[in-house]
């Protein structure tokens, strides 16, 4: 009934390692937990009613709505793009595959400001298509369309990066088997491919959504900061902060922080419950 004793050296951390663990815990507390307390502390510093008033402010409501709208367009599109890209890369051999992989990663390695700026260069008043757009009265920059485009570009890699390693790992044999059994390509996709990647897809969508709602740099460039019209929640925080409306700024920031916490909980749940169906690098 006794469990064989393990050598102590394997189970107990040596002194230095314990010290390092403690040090990183302190750093985490200062860098991560403290700001979180500050955000909520300052948001509620003038009382709950003031907090509520800041959140119910028409500009704040407009910012929340805009943020949700942008995410509601950008995230599903990037889910589709991500599935399509991962499908091509994982299931087929073709020339230029590694170039495509690099391209997918580009938004990760590029400053978000650049991701915003490219749209201004293309569609801004002085941009390539600027004159044509003005002549036809199409507004992209300083409008919702621009925000959506900038968000799509910045968040493009999340779903694709999550799916590619998993789908490469799974190979194309199951789909091939489905075809030999008489399934059409579309049936194979709906009944075999999609169920096999559902949790990883959800995981990618979750990360994509968190970034889409929290993105600041790229949307800042294309937004123009028109209050109540083109300010998403992160931009709204900046606007209020620059106005010295600290309660308002932190109240809006607390919404973003809550989104972060919800994402974290969902993400951890997925990692815990469906580890086997996520990409290998997400398994614990």
């Amino acid at each position: 009934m006794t469990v064989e004793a393990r050598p102590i050296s394997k189970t107990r951390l040596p002194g230095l390692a314990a010290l390092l663990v403690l040090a990183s815990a302190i750093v985490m507390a200062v860098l991560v937990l403290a700001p979180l307390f500050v955000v909520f502390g300052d948001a509620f510093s003038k009382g709950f009613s003031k907090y509520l008033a800041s959140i119910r402010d028409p500009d704040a409501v407009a910012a929340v709505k805009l943020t949700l709208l942008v995410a509601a367009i950008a995230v599903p599109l990037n889910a589709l793009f991500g599935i399509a890209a991962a499908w091509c890369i994982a299931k087929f051999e073709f020339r230029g595959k590694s170039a495509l992989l690099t391209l997918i990663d580009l938004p990760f390695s590029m400053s978000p400001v650049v991701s915003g700026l490219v749209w201004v260069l293309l569609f801004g008043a002085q941009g390539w298509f600027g004159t044509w757009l003005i002549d036809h009265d199409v507004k992209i920059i300083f409008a919702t369309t621009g925000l959506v485009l900038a968000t799509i570009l910045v968040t493009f890699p999340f779903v694709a990066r999550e799916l590619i390693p998993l789908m490469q790992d799974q190979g194309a044999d199951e789909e091939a088997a489905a075809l030999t059994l008489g399934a059409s390509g579309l049936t194979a996709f709906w009944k075999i491919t999609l169920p096999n990647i559902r949790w990883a897809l959800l995981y990618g969508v979750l990360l994509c959504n968190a970034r889409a709602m929290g993105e600041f740099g790229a949307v800042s460039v294309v937004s123009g900061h028109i209050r109540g019209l083109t300010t998403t929640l992160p931009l709204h925080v900046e606007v209020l902060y620059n106005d010295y409306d600290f309660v308002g700024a932190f109240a809006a920031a607390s919404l973003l922080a809550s989104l972060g916490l919800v994402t974290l909980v969902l993400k951890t749940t997925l990692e815990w419950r469906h580890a086997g169906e996520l990409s290998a690098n997400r398994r614990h």
Partner: protein
Amino acid sequence: MPVNSPPTDDTDAPGPGAKSPLSLEITGVSKSFGRFPALNDVSLQARDKEFLALLGPSGSGKTTLLRVLAGLERPDAGEVRFGGEDFLSLPVRQRRVGMVFQHYALFRHMTVAQNIAFGLKVRRRRERPSRSEVDDRVADLLSLVQLEDLGKRFPAQLSGGQRQRVALARALAIEPRMLLLDEPFGALDAQVRRELRRWLREVHDRAGVTTVFVTHDQEEALDLADRVAILKGGELIQLGTPNEVYENPADPFVYDFLGAACRLPGMVEGGRLTVADWEAKAPKDAPQGPVEVFFRPDEVSFAPGDGAGLAAEVKAVAARGPDVRIECLIEGRLFELEAHGPGAPAGVAPGLALRIKPMRPKVYPAPAPA
């Protein structure tokens, strides 16, 4: 004949009788991946209900050929006909081939029963059997593969051998016109392999379909198949019954591949074969001039050191029951010979000088000096 019918012991055994019609005709099929030629001008035929093995080392093109038959690869050139029909113009889903993949490719998110039912459920509405028919068919197939109680399990909950049988049941569910098996025993341990081998042959006989199966295991191919096609580097080297190819390998590669081989340089002149100080009648249609002589290590007879044969010096002896393994030096090369029971020379021990005679030497032209 439906596969789930009870075994019949009448005499319509679907052996590859010479009279049964050709069902599969592969003509001049070539396929390359980039600059790598996987198949080079391969032509072969299989008769109706024949059990054909594609045998070769890895990279020989056997799996590519199987995938061409399934429709998963398109050949660059050549023709494949099945039952007289142009098979290459048919998309995968219309070929009705049952394929068992090397790693089974079971649908991991479906139960065993759902896996088996898949091929029936994806049929077009008017061809689709009713739910109760599907259930009956799944039950029949589960009992055919002896997994009656495991219908509700998921593939991850099964052993390798069980998964393999599920894959086979799933392939049989669509009543395939041809069964394709890619290294069906590749991932199983030796014990399970042997058990499943006989059983697979029974399933083939009962299902009454043409079966093509890929393996790199010569014992498996020789044991199971009606005919064996040996491939190397994308080319068909030899096609014949297990006995034909084993008794009469087309070239040194096939000889080597089909079993343990001993080889020595020799010479054929005027109907006589000379190897070192041993001379014998040359085999029929042996090439003239310098040759390579092959023989199986268990197809030799032993004589005392002053008799006739190849001079051999015994280096080591290992007896296991009636079988004796004799390691000996012939012509400066070390060979491991096998003798069974009475065939073993008396009093064999390290240091002893012997004479050995290959009982059925095979002679191939010596390779040109590089």
